[in-house]
């Protein structure tokens, strides 16, 4: 785990479902194949309505926004693991949302692709895409450098070490739950 992640944010509203995160037409890409994994990343958030602007610039494979700030129920809908994987492959390190859909949250931990932080308060109305923030893992805080404000986050809890390890299998091996071979 990095003690600090700094970068520009991409801001979204409530109920960003898995079809908006990775539209179903791209689910033919198999995430366990490295070339298709990268390609999935290039389609991350391709299903968003136009008003949000582009998450990935035309012709690019990855995003300029390593942190997403969102409202409630982020990742609702399908169980497709392609969703956290597409975000991770695009270069997203963390999402800071008010709340998550259950399967998406679980898939973040299982894959170790990104950290699903929960904010204490609603940030998505106040924050704007392109603002500069730091995620402070040691203090459970999000610092918005543009607004010059500090915001409290809920502790990551049990999923933190799983994602630090690189996902469910890596964690299970590290902690002796399954054999190391």
């Amino acid at each position, binding site marked *: 785990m990095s003690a600090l992640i700094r970068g520009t944010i991409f801001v979204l509203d409530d109920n960003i479902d898995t*079809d908006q995160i990775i539209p179903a037409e791209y689910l033919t890409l198999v995430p*366990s194949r490295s070339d298709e994994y990268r390609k999935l990343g290039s389609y991350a958030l391709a299903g968003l309505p136009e008003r949000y602007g582009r998450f990935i610039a035309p012709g690019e494979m990855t995003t300029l926004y390593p942190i997403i700030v969102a409202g409630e129920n982020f990742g609702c809908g399908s169980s497709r693991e392609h969703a956290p994987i597409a975000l991770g492959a695009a270069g997203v390190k963390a999402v800071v949302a008010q*709340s998550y859909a259950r399967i998406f949250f679980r898939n973040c931990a299982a894959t170790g692709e990104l950290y699903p932080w929960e904010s204490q308060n609603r940030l998505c109305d106040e924050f704007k895409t392109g603002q500069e923030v730091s995620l402070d893992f040691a203090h459970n805080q999000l610092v918005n450098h543009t607004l010059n404000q500090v915001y409290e986050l809920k502790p990551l809890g049990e999923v933190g070490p799983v994602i630090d390890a690189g996902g469910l299998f890596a964690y299970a091996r590290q902690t002796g739950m399954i054999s190391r071979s």
Partner: protein
Amino acid sequence: MGMTLTEKILARAAGRSVVEPGENIWVEVDLLMTHDVCGPGTIGVFKREFGANAKVWDPEKIVLIPDHYIFTADERANRNVDILREFAQEQGIKYFYDITDRGNFKANPDYKGVCHIALAQEGHTRPGEVLFGTDSHTCNAGAFGQFATGIGNTDAGFIMGTGKLLIKVPATMRFVLNGKMPDYLLAKDLILQIIGDIGVAGATYRTMEFAGETIEQLTMEERMTLCNMAIEAGGKNGVVAPDATTFEYVRARTSKPFEAVYTDADAQFYSDRCYDVSELEPVVAKPHSPDNRALARECQDVKVDRVYIGSCTGGKTEDFIHAARILKGRRVKVPTYLVPATQKVYEDLFTQKYDGQTLSEIFLGAGCIEPAAPSCAACLGGPKDTFGRMNEPEVCVSTTNRNFPGRMGEKTAQIYLASPCTAAASALTGYITDPREYLA
């Protein structure tokens, strides 16, 4: 203190006498289901983590069902079905419902169609068991008093290798529905009503247990519709207590023994809601969220470009019978797409009769588009050449389950979720229409 049905299933699967909501427990898995969209990735995780020569934990407890992107020229989609086939052969997977001749699905007797309905029809949904599937609508099987929920590829890969999964015990929200169902209401109306009340995150991390005299009167297919959409409220699983209706359905399809469990009288619920169904009216979920509920009759000014009847949620035999009740002897005003969930449902359209005519005669007589090959089709958009896919910013009334932006293809398309009765009535007028206008 008593336990709920879900807690009892999970306690048994964990080898314990008691579990409580919030506990993290390891459960033994009775069945793992995956399909062409998530199967190849799951197999990839399994091989990466357990080795190229690893064997699955039990080849009789894995069900592989190609169903999502079947009738498409998309090469990668076709390759993904090939990956399932190779894996099934390599591992000796007992239940693989293959399709090799895409040009004529009827030439593939093993091909079933939409996984959730195929699981039920093939006898894989059994009371008291634990089913995980790499699809969010796996909760469909809760209709049989089974614990069934959706998971990602990594968790599924873990199960493939170990037969176990670490899960959190969900608290149960009970929904008690009483009263006689009016003939214009279907289970789809009930679940859209409930989701409208609690919201798309109203049951996150929790079980939705449906009980009451109305539920006891529902057929298995209607119970499936109800449980299928638990995920649209964020629920981990939906469940109905098994009864004579359940046992009759299951025993006609499998000889495998099972043990039904029931919620104790003194079980604790996270919440308890009661409905008198005789007071409810046909509803729709407006764009772009399944909880954006409105009465169908309040939307009569909404002009409709097409109607879609299909999917695990709304493409079962009874869904088509209900549509036929409305469409018989009348003509649709907008293109009306029919996608039977499974090959069995497809056959039923040509053999089951309503009021003297087969369902397909009724539909073709009404001017509907000929029934398509069974698959998930346009419910989730899919490759551009998918049957019924929304490729224009049009308005669709659909019996499917989800209407977030882009769900059926084009992101500015507007999807109104509705029951088969409301969808059929809307096809007749070209506007969203309360089915009571056609059910005198």
